[in-house]
């Protein structure tokens, strides 16, 4: 029985953000934008969606008088990401048979 792919993660930019955040302890918004080549507006929207479902934590603070947004994956986010990768593997294994 196949699990449906998580619709929150099965999106190009959100999956890219989650893949970056799973590899680091935390990352600034500018780092994520640099690595994904996304526009600031689009990235903000997708980050908000990931935050709303509890997959990431977003902290806004000031650093040297400039606003700084830091993102961090949550334990729920890690669990969802692992389940997504597992579901992908299942699909691919069936494709091979």
């Amino acid at each position, binding site marked *: 029985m196949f699990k449906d*792919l998580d619709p929150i993660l*099965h*999106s*190009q*930019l959100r*999956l*890219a953000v989650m*893949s*970056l955040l*799973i*590899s*680091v*302890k*935390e*990352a*600034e918004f*500018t*780092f994520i934008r*640099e*690595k*994904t*080549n*996304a*526009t600031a507006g*689009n990235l903000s929207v997708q980050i908000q969606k990931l935050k709303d479902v509890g997959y990431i934590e977003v902290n806004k603070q000031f*650093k*040297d008088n400039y606003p700084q947004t830091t993102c961090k994956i949550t334990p729920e986010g890690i669990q969802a990401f692992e389940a997504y*990768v597992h579901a*992908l593997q299942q*699909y*691919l294994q069936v*494709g091979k048979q």
Partner: protein
Amino acid sequence: MTGEEKELSEQESLRLIASMIHKAKGGFHETGTSAILWGSAVAIPGFISFAELKWNFYIGFDIWLLTLAAIIPQIFISIREGRRRKAVSHDESVMNAVWTTYGFSIMLLVIYINVMPSVSDQLLRADGVEWLEHNLTTGKTEHLKPYVVGQTSLFLLLYSMPTLVTGIARKFKPMLYGALLCYVLFFVSFFTSFTYDMLLMAVAGIFNWLIPGFILRKKYLKTKGTNV
């Protein structure tokens, strides 16, 4: 990755995940500044102390204070690198914990070496015991204040620990070999006098940190150049 979101196939999803993980890993580069700083802060005092003991002169102050003074630029380096850092890797936070623990351990070892003689002397006297030094040439026997025998060996043993961890974890051979050499120097120090121990400290500073630091710096500048 701009504009409209397109439907991903399973293969595309996996490729995207792999590429992002790879990109995240590529974002971390050691500047090598701290390694160069600490390599110099151990190698220079090591060589100067060796020269002072070997050729009987004194430069007017304890050169090992330079190692203590190196903490000040290290604080500035840490603040500056922290500001530039846009992401913290898991690996990096573990390495920071290892080096912080090492810093505390070195500090505590220095305190132990300085406090231990007076305290031990008092404790021995309280038990009605004292250490005596018998000069075989003059035949004189005098009171001897207890001291930590083989201090250099303890430092060499401690120097190699964080370097070896970093070398293994980061798969960075110059630090791995530097740390292994440090273990060799640790064994050598069993058989050398305090004068030559200073030379061993200098060699440890050069191979443990100074050379790996220059290699890291070169790599960092090369990567920085290609990213511009």
